[in-house]
């Protein structure tokens, strides 16, 4: 007991000594080992924690966090992962220490351009470490798995998904009726395009299954994945600037002939509030899209190291079956908790039966730029 108190007061002194000390690696290791109870007084001393988050759900987290830990002001900014990456790099170049916690997808870019450049510090709350697989703890902590998968309007198609093979999206039936976010604006969508290319062989056999003949590639097109992207764009795929636009387009109830498109499975949670009828198309050959980690990290230049760690601990959920208030915004069908001790959401397709491809960050980052250029050429 006394020892803990001593540790706290020492840490408080170190924290009070300012930013330079806070970046000290020893200090980081020291805080890394602390329990949330030990972090709390230090975090309260720091007073605020700024989070860049790739989801609008950060607003709900903010409310819950401030209720759980009075005296610490959480400032959440909802920014796409792409924008976060640009901003974090620009802020680092400018020597600005604005952000404490980064909550982001786009792992392929995050690992190479942010973590690799020393802009992020990995942190795994000791409280939840045992409930995670090794791959979910390194190189950065994964909080949950998110998706960009094919979704349809279940009101208009009560008998199930209108599409069972991705190649159907390139046919006349779906001309001008496939919608997604511009892959050049959102990294998740560029990852999805990249995955088609990485899975070119599966795409080729799916083509044959759909049309009965082997795929013929256009000039300059190297594989079935690239050909799929080309055909999708030639079929007047509609690009918008945010997933909410995609959701509303696909999901809005009362449509006779709604479009289909790629969005987050978890956005189905808003069906009731927004008047949507979003449903996932899971039985799709060769896959319905991608599933990828949402990662949490501490900014390497954080001025609030204890509060940052406390916030990450909070975002990982409490010890109840559903993760409690910190995880509540993410305990929805379509998001898959990385923690083994949080039970699957009863209304979702179980992860084991979910047909989405799991993204390989390293392979993705190797060809991402080239796929981006292909998309740029097609626009």
């Amino acid at each position: 007991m006394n020892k803990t108190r001593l540790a706290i007061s020492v840490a408080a002194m170190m924290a009070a000594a300012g930013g330079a000390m806070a970046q000290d690696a020893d200090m980081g290791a020291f805080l890394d080992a602390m329990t949330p109870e030990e972090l709390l007084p230090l975090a309260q001393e720091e007073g605020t924690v700024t989070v860049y988050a790739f989801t609008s759900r950060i607003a709900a987290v903010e409310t819950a966090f401030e209720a759980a830990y009075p005296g610490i002001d959480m400032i959440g900014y909802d920014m796409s992962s792409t924008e976060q990456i640009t901003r974090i790099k620009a802020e680092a170049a400018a020597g600005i220490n604005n952000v404490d916690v980064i909550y982001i997808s786009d792992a392929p870019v995050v690992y190479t351009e942010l973590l690799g450049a020393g802009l992020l510090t990995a942190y795994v709350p000791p409280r939840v470490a045992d409930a995670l697989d090794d791959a979910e703890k390194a190189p950065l902590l994964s909080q949950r798995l998110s998706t960009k998968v094919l979704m349809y309007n279940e009101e208009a198609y009560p008998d199930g998904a209108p599409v069972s093979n991705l190649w159907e999206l390139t046919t006349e039936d779906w001309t001008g009726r496939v919608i997604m976010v511009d892959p050049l604006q959102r990294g998740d969508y560029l990852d999805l395009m990249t995955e088609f290319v990485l899975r070119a062989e599966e795409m080729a056999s799916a083509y044959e299954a759909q049309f009965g003949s082997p795929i013929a590639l256009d000039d300059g097109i190297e594989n079935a994945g690239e050909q799929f992207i080309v055909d999708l764009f030639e079929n007047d795929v509609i690009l918008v600037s945010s997933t909410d636009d995609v959701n509303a387009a696909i999901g809005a109830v009362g449509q006779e002939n709604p479009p289909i498109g790629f969005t987050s499975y978890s956005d189905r949670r808003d069906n009731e509030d927004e008047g949507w009828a979003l449903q996932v198309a899971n039985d799709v050959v060769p896959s319905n899209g991608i599933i990828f980690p949402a990662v949490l990290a501490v900014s390497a230049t954080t001025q609030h190291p204890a509060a940052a760690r406390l916030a990450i601990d909070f975002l990982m959920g409490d010890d109840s079956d559903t993760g409690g208030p910190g995880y509540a915004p993410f305990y929805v069908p379509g998001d898959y908790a990385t923690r083994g001790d949080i039970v699957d959401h009863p209304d979702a397709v179980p992860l084991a039966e979910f047909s989405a491809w799991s993204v390989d960050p390293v392979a993705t980052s190797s060809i991402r730029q080239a796929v981006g250029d292909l998309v740029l050429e097609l626009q």
Partner: protein
Amino acid sequence: MTHALSLKAASQRWASGGLALKLAVLLALGVLVAAPLLRIFLETLGPDAIAAWTDVTASRLSRNLLWLPLANTMILGFGVAAGCVLIGGYLAWLVVMTDIPFRRTIGLMATLPFMIPSFATALAWGSLFRNSRVGGQVGFLEGLGLAVPDWLAWGIVPTLIVLIAHYYSLAFTVIAAALATVNSDLVEAAQIAGAKRGRILMGIILPVALPAIVAGASLTFAGAVSNFAAPALLGLPVRMQTLATRLFGLIEVGQTARGYVIAILLIAVSALFLWFGNKVISGRRSYATITGKGGRAKRFELAGARLPLFAVALAICVLTTIVPVLILIASSMAPSSSALFSNWTLHYWFGASDPAIAQGQAGVWHNPFILSATSLTVGLGVTVAVTGTALGLIVAFVLARHGRGPLAGAINQLSFLPLLVPGIAFGAAYIALFGAPIGPLPALYGTFPLLVIAGTAYLLPFAVQTGRAVIQQVSGDLDESARLTGAGFFRRMGAITVPLAIRGLAAGALIVFVKIMRDLSLVVLLFTPTTPLLAVLAYRYASEGFTQFANAITVVILVISIAATLLANRLQAKSQPWLKS
């Protein structure tokens, strides 16, 4: 002897003072204007970046990176210039030369659209015409059961219309001012000689107004090619890109080298046409000074055409001023844009966070970002109005009193250069220059001073214009006498020029204030979470699909801008001489 000596000493001091002042001004302009532009150019020549030139101009990507956006940009530029000259010229002719009823009202209304930010008009367009192409909420017309075709909801046509509706008042102002100088004796002589109206129009009025028409066309052209908001909001769903939106997209995803190349090309396009317009006018500089001292010519009698022409003018004015504002106000309260006038709620203004509405976004009144953005935006407007006007006054003073020599020439050119640089390209240049520490100076990225510096530089041409008008009002003799009594530069400014010209200065400062308040293109790239600005927040809300919030913020901007504009008009009673009867 003593007297002559002291005079000589004074004039030496004066000359060296003038030189020091010139050098100081040149240094300031160098940092503010030349350095960012040079920097952005040098950035693209680095070993990693030079390939971007090939990528953009000569690769398989260049069609989408450059040529199509360039084509769209040119269509917008020429289309908007033509539309603005037609509409602005038509209204100017009616107001200045004819016996149209309610001339003053039309004259006033025709100047207002420019005060409404173009993204506000674009948002209003969306609220009306949005169709189901991107699904979700449709606009009011589809809500009434009318089918809106894609070409009317998205892309080049609505962008053209919105931009014309925004910029025509610029053409109106320029052309009306020129028409007011038409020598009435000439017109009367022609009338007595029995010339028909068409003949008078072609033979007398048009030649006098031509330079103004060219000026109006090139100004509106430059405005249209650099506009970011309208094509961004109305073009993306049909994959329409302009150079401005392409530049924004590239910078946002971190492809800065390609973005900078696009920025340079955009500056080149804009500058080329402004230069060309200037070339056409120059050599005919006398157009504004034709002094018809005779009585005001008898106005053209429109006779039977009076009411129809009035109806057209009124429709144009109402559609471009009152209608967009009403739509914005209505759609900031309507839960669904397909039913703009039903189920009104003040939730988007004053509501607390409700998870069932808009992902739990609280009303703008409760959103701490929006409150801080309002104070920051107003603070920025006031600061830039002060710094810009002060710098503009000093530059104008230097040019008026020491206007000779290569230094003055350089100052003159540099102070008008920002007029040629689209705001978004300027923003990109500022990030390139101030995004990292320069020697011992800290980086300015994400700070209020950067916004102030960028805003001051961007609006310098307008401030210099105000400064010139003011300096011309104040007789040089006063300044000279004060100088001979030994008063220093700042003393003379503070004790003579500024007090005498305070009304003109304040009006000019208010115009700068309004321009910053409603500007999006300059700040959209400079925005960081620590420096939220109203226009950027509105744009972000709009692109996230939170239309009502976007519209509510836009209404706030509008109210502040219009109030400041009306105040400026009052201060500057002489700004619309053609309204005098």
